[in-house]
């Protein structure tokens, strides 16, 4: 990849897997170290996702101290930041040497949040039905109203104006 084609700052995203052998206490420290590496080369961090323990879709093999180690799970985190292509080349060189990083990916992205599954799920879910007092009062009012109209009609029919009522209904 030629890093010298563009020189203006762009938005990048670093996604990384940390090795699962790290303890729970070491994870935030290692994540901070990764963040510090980015801050060294570019100051602007736009968004960050802290490492979360996940099951990998397939086994990743990494050579550590001339030995192949196999990993079925890892801590996945990401950082979105602004940087220039030359800075990205430096950052990649640093990330390659880090033994705590199982695998990483550096991609060009957009400044706004591209994670859409949350947005779609939240926009599609309707407000849950609530049985508050106001709703109940409205319901009872409508029922009472209907009852009232039925009783009026019954009185008219019993009063002997059956023909009038039938005419009204037909019209």
């Amino acid at each position, binding site marked *: 990849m030629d890093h010298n084609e563009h020189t203006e700052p762009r938005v990048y995203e670093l*996604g990384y*897997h940390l090795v699962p052998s790290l303890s729970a206490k070491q994870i935030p420290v290692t994540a901070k170290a990764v963040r510090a590496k980015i801050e060294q080369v570019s100051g602007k961090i736009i968004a960050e996702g802290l490492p979360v323990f*996940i099951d*990998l*879709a*397939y086994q*990743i093999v990494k050579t550590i101290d001339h030995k192949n180690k196999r990993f079925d799970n*890892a801590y*996945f985190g*990401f950082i979105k930041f602004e940087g220039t292509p030359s800075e990205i080349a430096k950052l990649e060189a640093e990330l390659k040497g880090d033994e705590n990083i199982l*695998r990483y*990916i550096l*991609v060009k*992205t*957009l400044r*706004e949040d*591209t*994670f*859409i*599954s949350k*947005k*779609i799920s939240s926009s599609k879910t309707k407000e849950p039905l609530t049985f508050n007092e106001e709703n109940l009062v409205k319901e009872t009012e409508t029922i009472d109203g209907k009852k009232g109209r039925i009783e009026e009609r019954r009185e008219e029919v019993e009063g002997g104006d059956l023909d009038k009522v039938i005419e009204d209904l037909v019209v």
Partner: protein
Amino acid sequence: MKQCYFSENNVKLIDYKDTDIIKKFLNPHSRMIAGEHTGVCSKHQRQLANAVKRARFMALLPFVSK
């Protein structure tokens, strides 16, 4: 005619981390389903292909499954 799922939801860039969404466009063998079947427009089908490749590399999605 089917509308593109991503155009309907105003998606500017398909994120490789969105595995729940990407999985909708893969068959049980984890292979991509053709745009003609899913109704995804060519622009988003190309983006989807990139997102799938990135997600596979990061082991968020399998390359093959039974």
